[in-house]
């Protein structure tokens, strides 16, 4: 047997196989995956940008239409990362094809890297498409492009990791929808996607600071317009902390075999 000669400590072929498999699933549903968010984003611009935005003053020196762009990208990034990653790992659990991944010489890290990497790739692509769509409606400037990319990638990775966890936790399709619909969407709407939290009364402003989404949107918006609700260092720290938390959960999942192995 020619292949059994030497076993590398990193299963590159295995990671690539899962990564490509996941992206090919994405290609099959490219319309649904890319066109839907583009239409949704356009609708947001029609409603918030043109209809309501025209009656609103600038927010922190930024026209309202442009102000909501980072929040809109983040909103899609959260939900799509969650959905992609959750579905990616839930589907093989549901169909039973997970047996092959579990019996393959791939480590937990490699499995996570492949599934989460693929989900993050898709949502980053999506974020870029939404940004391009937004640029058709409003003038956009990006003051700190490197930070913008850093926040985009980090957020996509974090929420994909979070989605991977929910995909392992979910016992049915309803539960798959639970986190994005009932947790993330409300938190995003309340997290300053469409307004600056400075516009809130002091009490609600304080309450908002307990919403982790505020930090993500604030940091991302800072990379565009140089202004933010909270300090960019705090935003970055909060994002990294959430990433680390998800990482710990994933390690625990593979240590215990939780809902993957009996």
């Amino acid at each position, binding site marked *: 047997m*020619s292949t059994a000669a030497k076993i590398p400590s990193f299963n590159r*072929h295995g990671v690539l*196989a899962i990564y490509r498999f996941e992206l090919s699933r994405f290609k099959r549903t490219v319309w649904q995956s890319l066109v839907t968010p583009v239409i949704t984003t356009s609708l947001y611009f029609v409603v918030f940008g043109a209809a309501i935005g025209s009656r609103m003053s600038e927010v922190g020196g930024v026209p309202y239409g442009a102000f909501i762009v980072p929040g809109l990208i983040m909103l899609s990034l959260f939900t799509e990362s969650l959905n992609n990653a959750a579905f990616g790992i839930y589907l093989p659990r549901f169909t039973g*094809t997970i*047996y*092959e991944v*579990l*019996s393959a010489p791939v480590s937990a890290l490699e499995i996570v890297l492949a599934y989460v990497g693929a989900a993050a790739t898709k949502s980053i692509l999506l974020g870029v498409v939404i940004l391009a769509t937004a640029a058709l409606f409003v003038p956009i400037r990006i003051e700190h492009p490197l930070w913008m990319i850093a926040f985009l990638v980090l957020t996509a990775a974090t929420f994909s990791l979070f989605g991977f966890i929910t995909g392992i936790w979910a016992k049915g399709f309803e539960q798959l929808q639970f986190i994005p619909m009932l947790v993330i969407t409300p938190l995003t709407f309340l997290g300053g996607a469409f307004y600056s939290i400075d516009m809130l009364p002091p009490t609600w402003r304080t309450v908002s600071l307990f919403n982790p989404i505020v930090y993500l949107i604030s940091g991302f918006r800072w990379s565009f317009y140089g202004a933010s609700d909270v300090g960019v260092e705090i935003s970055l720290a909060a994002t990294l902390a959430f990433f680390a938390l998800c990482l710990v959960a994933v390690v625990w999942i593979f240590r215990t075999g939780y809902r993957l192995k009996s």
Partner: protein
Amino acid sequence: MPPVVSISNLTKTYASGLEALKKVDLEICKGEIFALLGPNGAGKTTLISIICGIVTPTTGTVLVDGHDILRDYRECRTKIGLVPQELHTDMFETVWNTVSFSRGLFGCPPNPAHLEKVLRELSLWDKRNDKIMTLSGGMKRRVLIAKALAHEPQILFLDEPTAGVDVELRRDMWGLVRQLRDSGVTIILTTHYIDEAEEMADRIGVVNKGELILVEEKSRLMEKLGKKQLTLHLLKPLAGIPVALGDWHIVLKDGGNELECNFDAAEEHTGIPALLRRLGELEIGFKDLQTRQSSLEDIFVDLVQDRA
């Protein structure tokens, strides 16, 4: 031959409290076809799933080619191919893509020539660009076998390979398994079709209620536990068993018209000819005779019932 899989003290208790395996010890020899035989729920699939890394053992160790399945999982799993019992497939993928995926997943660089060989051997080559969802159940099973062979494993596990498969495909499957064995692959299959084990296996392990109750070479098993039965259709009915036939286990049936004698297969050389000679001496004539040798099925049923 050296063992290629060594299982010692293996137990598995599921979270539900179900004791699926109770202290199993087993060695599989390199290059053999080993059949795990047992009724549904006996623990066959649990045993295979532990070796393949899908189920975590409660206690005990499994070595594959000298490597511990938990510590050296990469070495072990690279050598193993698994064909699961259920038809778990990616419906929307093509045959070629799913087989290429399997090869990559097991850490092998692409090798289209090998995949073509596997697909041709399984009569799947013409279907390589078809989506799996369009294939019949038998074809899907072949796809699962092709996936398991994609990374050139040295040990192949077949969990109920011919469940729900038609007669022709079963024959094909058996042919393929033999061919694989001839190429040096060790094969471990589970089945509850006893004729399958009888047809294929070099050695047989009988599993019942989580215990490995017997491991034996098939021929020895048949010899040791098999029984031979002789039935004579007599010319004239006998009223009773003559005293001179007291050394044999004889019963009279059909109002004394039939004489039935049970032999242990192992004593066959002394049993039947001696009986026939004695009958000749007693001038008991017969117009017809039948012999029946117990099949593996009878042996199996006896074994499992004894333990019930």
